[in-house]
């Protein structure tokens, strides 16, 4: 996948499912590259509810209808189109699509005291992920246990393994290059962050907690040191 495609389309998890934001450019190209991304991560998208954010772009009802059908073929439900163009909004409404996602404003009304850190959601797995088992989430994933060879962890966010990582791990699976993977022992069969693969397999030596991240387009692993941030 080229970098250009990535900048055209952003995918993130929201409360209501997935939010796909597309930039300017020829609609046909954008649609193709979205469908391509979906095809590459078929399992990840399957069954998802999808909201489309198109900005000021004017979209015809026919274009929206085609997209909806293409997505439906892949078991993805297009339910909302967000746009600042009245034309697009109207066309979306004609097709029975929502034009607003209820951003969790209501929740914000509950005033959090300044000393609480809001944090981000994560899925917690309190067991060893054995061969043939997998954990999939658009959020972060925390495993308290090992990830054995043949086990898979695929996260939209970061992956923290309080144990040995010897399976397949993919962080930032929605494209987030800032995602990290850390484990008490990092010796995965496959490691990937966003679209970057770890190239050289881990060397020997005494196992120690390590953190893998993307630096200048390459996955690097370093001893896990807690730095203030």
């Amino acid at each position, binding site marked *: 996948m080229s970098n250009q495609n990535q900048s055209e389309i952003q995918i993130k998890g929201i409360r209501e499912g997935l939010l796909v934001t597309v930039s300017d450019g020829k609609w046909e190209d954008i649609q193709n590259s979205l469908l391509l991304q979906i095809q590459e991560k078929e399992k990840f998208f399957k069954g998802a509810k999808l909201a489309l954010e198109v900005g000021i772009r004017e979209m015809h009802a026919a274009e929206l209808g085609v997209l909806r059908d293409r997505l439906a073929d892949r078991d993805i439900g297009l339910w909302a189109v967000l746009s600042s163009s009245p034309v697009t909004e109207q066309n979306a409404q004609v097709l029975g699509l929502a034009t607003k996602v209820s951003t969790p404003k209501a929740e914000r009304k509950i005033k959090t005291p300044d000393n609480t850190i809001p944090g981000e959601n994560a899925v917690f797995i309190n*067991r*060893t992920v*054995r*061969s*043939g*088992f997998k954990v999939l989430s658009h959020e972060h994933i925390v495993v308290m246990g090992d990830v*054995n*060879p*043949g086990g898979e962890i695929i996260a939209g966010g970061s992956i923290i393994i309080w144990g040995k990582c*010897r399976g397949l791990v993919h962080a930032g699976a929605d494209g987030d290059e800032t995602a990290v993977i850390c484990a008490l022992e990092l010796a995965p069969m496959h490691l990937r962050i966003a679209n970057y693969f770890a190239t050289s397999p881990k060397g020997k030596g005494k196992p120690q907690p390590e953190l893998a991240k993307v630096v200048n387009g390459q996955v690097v692993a370093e001893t896990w040191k807690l730095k203030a941030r």
Partner: protein
Amino acid sequence: MSAKVVTITSGKGGVGKTTTTANLAVALAQQEQRVVCIDGDIGLRNLDVILGLENRIVYDLVDVIEGRCRLKQAMIRDKRLPELYLIPAAQTRDKSAVSPSDMVRLCDELRNEVDWILVDSPAGIERGFKNALAPADIVLVVTNPEISAVRDADRIVGLIEAEEKGPAKLILNRVNSSLTKRGDMISAEDVLELLAIDLIGIIPEDENVVVASNRGQPVTLSEKAKAGQAFRNIARRLLGEEVPYMNLDEKGGLFDRLSRMIKSGGD
């Protein structure tokens, strides 16, 4: 007194499930236990051959389940031991002839008749495995110190956990005491460390096993064979005894290291 159902399973075929079932049955029966083993490998039965009882089959598991005979009629008694019985698998049927609830019902009916019910599971994770797992009180996972066998064992251990039948106990079979290893072999320590379940026995690689099985005389019937000794030790552990692991080689060798490792693990 109600029997315990012990299911012997592995994921991968050919690692020694049937060998283990036959030999544990013999070893338990040698300890004056009443034992019945059930061949769960419908269509591929061979527990009867290894026990040397194939010529005495009249009825099989599917006959019992489909009501063509009474349970007692399908139980072949092994005359070499006081109370050892086999319920053979059907040769001509596919696995769908038996359901998990059939197995639970059958085992419940047997519980008051014997002390141990050993169920030999077929390879794989399909219906036959589910049938064998359904009635289990204790699950023994058999593996070899070899990468693909351990990978499959890991998967099976996970499935057993998911079915809330765990924690399974591990039998490491065909362990070679010599330090020369083939490329796809992994050390016993690494197997234990990866699977992270309790070990209940280590069976050495022993050519007597093959010879004995071919003759229908499970190796445990012979006093001398090391593998037989190892199976007898597992039977005693099942009966609640604490039995030290055999030292099968010179000092500093595999078994030495392993027993030290097990001790430091605290069981």
